[in-house]
């Protein structure tokens, strides 16, 4: 129960930080914001690596492997496409 309370604390505080910071992003950058935040949501990769690396049973390893592939596509694709877009905004 204590762990849950701690996790909820982090969740609520992070939400507030998120709202404060993200409302300041101008509409011009809303597409890179979406694709960039999309890449950040690939953080679930961390969990995928742990599952694939634990190798408890074949099934969990297979699930972990698939999760690593999906999450890595999400992370690499997301950050790269965001970079491509943001560079267009930089050049004058």
């Amino acid at each position, binding site marked *: 129960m204590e762990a849950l309370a701690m996790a909820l604390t982090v969740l609520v505080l992070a939400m507030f930080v*998120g709202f404060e910071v993200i409302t300041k992003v101008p509409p011009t*950058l809303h597409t890179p914001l979406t694709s960039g935040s999309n890449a950040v949501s690939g953080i679930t990769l961390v969990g995928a690596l742990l599952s694939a690396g634990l190798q408890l049973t074949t099934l969990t*390893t297979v699930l972990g492997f698939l*999760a690593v592939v999906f*999450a890595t596509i999400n992370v690499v694709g997301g950050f790269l496409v965001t970079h491509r877009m943001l560079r267009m905004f930089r050049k004058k």
Partner: protein
Amino acid sequence: MRLALVNLAYLLASVLFILTFKGLAHPRTAVRANLMGSVGMLVAVIATLTLLDWSQGVGRLWVIPAGLGVGSVVGALLALRIRMTAVPQMVALLNGFGGAASTLVAGAALLEELAQGRLPDAQLAVATVAAAIIGAVTFWGSLVAFGKLEELIHGRPLLFAGQHVLNAGLLGLALLLGAALGLAPGAAWTFWVIVAAASVLGVTLVLPIGGADMPVVICLLNSYSGLAACATGFVLQNNMLIVAGSLVGASGLILTGIMCRAMNRSLANVVFGGVGAEVVTGAAADQVYGGRVKSASAEEIAIVLETARRVVIVPGYGMAVSQAQHAVRDLARLLESRGTEVEFGVHPVAGRMPGHMNVLLAEADIPYDKVREMAEVNPSFAQTDVAIVIGANDVVNPVARTDPKSPIAGMPILDVDKAKTVVVIKRSLSPGFAGIPNPLFAADNTLMYFADGKKAVLDLVDALKRVG
């Protein structure tokens, strides 16, 4: 000690993610911000890899480099080859992959507990079920959104009888089984039935939503992919996942709200309304347009533009479809070289996801400080000599202000009709997503230029050069 160091690395990654969002507040700092995000991800991955048992070499853990390698290649190919017009589809797909990964991780975590002879406690059970449901809905919903944006599936809302009952039933089933899993955590099969029910729900939730509402759906699914990562954080009791996931969740929710306000619709109306399912008949169109539409040639429009001091260009998605961005930039530069002030006015839902039109204009080297958002540009139309509307329709339809019974009633629009002259470049008088005629096309101060967007603008540039 090692665990403490890993947790400090996770803290560093969380801070970098927050700075990523902070840096996106300005185009100048945005490139660096995105790099910070990717460094944060790298730190998190490396820290996690040190937790694994590498004592027997890479051989046993080959699935990890293999998975990272395959994912990196596919992700990089996707990101480098995608056309800017297709970015919404790509984001939809990536959202889905993130959701799928969260579901798989939750499933694996549950099975690991059982394989070790432990029964998951209530927190793990609830978090696992949440990650499973949100992740599966995100994955399948995103695939449907991808299909609609890529036009593999018809963009029109697919409505069927008992839809809402079915969706409620599926969600109810998933939640009920989730409760069952909490009470009898040993029965792993319930997890997969929950995933199956949530998968069907993902499809039936997004199918009824029309193509015009896809920007909202992308934002919403973006938010879900964050919440799924957050739920995975609860499963693994990992604060970094919770921080990153809630940042993404917040971002998606904020954008969803902005998109809904830009269409003057409630989220419930977008998700359940099926707007655009009925096609409005042509009779009303005849009443609006009958004999009042003035068609003009490139030469006639060039003469109007020649004396204009201020021109506002209003692009819609039609401009992107005809690939007219570069021609539009040339027109803007030509006008500016003649001393005309040129600005762009962009409606929040002009593209197929929030900010999409800004990206398309930036790709064509149109400086971002010339691109104004709706609230900024609207007061200036009264002092604008010519407003050029290219490939936009519903977002400049004055009916939104005047007819409370219209499907777009109350939607904020770009007030181009207040400009001295309005030039509308469009293939025909066909209606936009809302399916209603646009009285702007028949207004006294409007000149219609019927042509393909790109060809029209190129001809306009030529005509303007000839005029002098």
